[in-house]
């Protein structure tokens, strides 16, 4: 299938609700954190509905815990489906990680061992999720700080194999590749070269922080130059991919973030042709 291209988006954050509603700034689309709206009612949903009228959206979750050995959380999936029906997003995504075990939630994106047993486990669960929500999903690569002794393959092979066998798509976080490359001593370009181009549906960009010589995925700074370079490299490899910037802490005024997004647009214009950058967001992904 031809990859839909939404253009250049931003993460929708509470601090920017009023600016977005009042000024309708020029942004191609917004990504929402699903869990922020998996609530009964009130202001967040009212703002969401208003903003959705003017912008395409995608939904990005942090709590599906697709890699957990707990049973899939049926209540969570029901609420997710309710939100999908409300937002009608272009697509939904979550992380290739686990967040809870024995029903205790870490509220963190915890890494998995990269081996065949984990792949089989996760492929089954993604298929169940896709059956439940009636559409294909995207899985995102993590920033990670540990490697398990029983990992048997590079992360990119792990991601590819799951996407292929579960018939889902990949949300490639360029900053996460940079962070993990530093923390686990691999070349970030090897990761990008190793990913199946046909499965990549979206890019994330973000800033990070240093903890000694390790890098932590904090989303509290501007995107740094090496990550912009890696983004340029990724565009050269994959072509036009819907791109957004995540900012979750130390959040600047909206227009500052918008200017940062303009850097992504400028890089894409340098690497790709206007034909490649034609926005094609008419159909939602994989809706049955």
């Amino acid at each position, binding site marked *: 299938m031809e990859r839909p291209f939404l253009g250049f988006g931003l993460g929708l954050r509470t601090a920017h609700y009023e600016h977005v509603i009042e000024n309708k700034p020029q942004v191609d689309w917004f990504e929402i954190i699903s869990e922020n709206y998996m609530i*009964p009612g009130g202001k967040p949903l009212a703002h969401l509905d208003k903003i959705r009228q003017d912008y395409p959206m995608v939904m990005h979750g942090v709590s599906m815990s697709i890699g957990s050995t707990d049973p899939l959380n049926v209540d969570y999936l029901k609420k997710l489906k309710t939100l999908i029906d409300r937002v009608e997003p272009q697509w939904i995504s979550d992380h290739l990680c686990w967040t809870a075990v024995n029903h205790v939630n870490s509220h*963190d994106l*915890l890494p998995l061992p990269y081996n065949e047993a984990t792949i089989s*486990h996760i492929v089954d669960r993604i298929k169940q999720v896709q059956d439940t929500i009636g559409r294909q999903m995207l899985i995102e690569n993590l920033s990670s700080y540990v490697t398990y*002794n029983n990992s048997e393959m590079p992360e990119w092979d792990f991601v590819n194999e799951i996407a292929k066998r579960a018939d889902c798509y990949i949300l490639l976080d360029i900053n996460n590749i940079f962070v993990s490359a530093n*923390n686990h001593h691999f070349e970030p370009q090897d990761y990008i070269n190793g990913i199946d181009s046909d499965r990549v549906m979206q890019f994330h960009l973000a800033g990070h922080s240093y903890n000694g010589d390790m890098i932590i995925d904090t989303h509290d700074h501007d995107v740094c130059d090496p990550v912009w370079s890696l983004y340029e490299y990724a565009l050269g490899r994959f072509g036009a991919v819907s791109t957004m910037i995540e900012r979750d802490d130390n959040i600047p005024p909206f227009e500052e973030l918008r200017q940062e997004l303009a850097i992504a647009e400028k890089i894409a214009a340098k690497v790709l042709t206007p034909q490649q950058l034609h926005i094609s967001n008419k159909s939602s992904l994989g809706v049955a």
Partner: protein
Amino acid sequence: MSDLHDMQQRFMDYLLDESTTIVDEIESTPMRSAKGRLDIYASAYRLRLKEAITTDYDKLALYLGDERFEKLMDLYIDKFPSHTTNLRYFSTHLPELIRDETDYAHIAEVYELACIERAFADSFDAKDLQFATIDDLAALPEQAWGTLSFKFQKSVQIIWLEHNSFPIWKALAEEHTPPKANKSSATAWILWRKSDLISHYRMLAPEEIAILALAMQGENFAVMCEKLLEFYNEQETPMKAIGFLQSWITEEMLAGFEY
């Protein structure tokens, strides 16, 4: 998947500070030991939960000060591991912890402040229902009044306070020095969200809380009027009852009628 399950449990035990056996399953590198790498997750775990608690109880945090609030959060995180997928609901048991398991049991305004903040959080994103109007009331058929009961907005919450905790909360919200805590006779407060999506609150007079409590339990209008006879004579009671009902409607507390 028992290997993966056991590994995940050992990883979680590390975050919960209960066991360090997972260390042997993680690669150490010259850059950072396995323990140093796991500690990044362990620190982030507590930090994230503390951020969630502080978001929900920011006035209490101001009232207690950094050191005491930090200690309270550590106790909460140890006693109440998260069983929710949504951080929004993680801190929901903090008032009970304060009341039942801390030295603040004898400093009642601390518990009351926590109750107020939790009520605001619960009101903020309670389910949206339509708002009943005076026209809806006027359109009720005469026979409805015999069994008429009331459906309240999901955001409506009643809080009983024995201290001047709302003035304390208000001062903290406005970044003023809070008044000294004073014990008084128990008073009821109502907190609810209007159509402007903002949560409002006010004190309830004894006669109003007496019938409001009945109305919220689903008792009908006749029972409420009977209760009001404890406060007013037979002539005054029907008009007083209608007056309360009209104010609940104009203040956007009511969602509808049942009969």
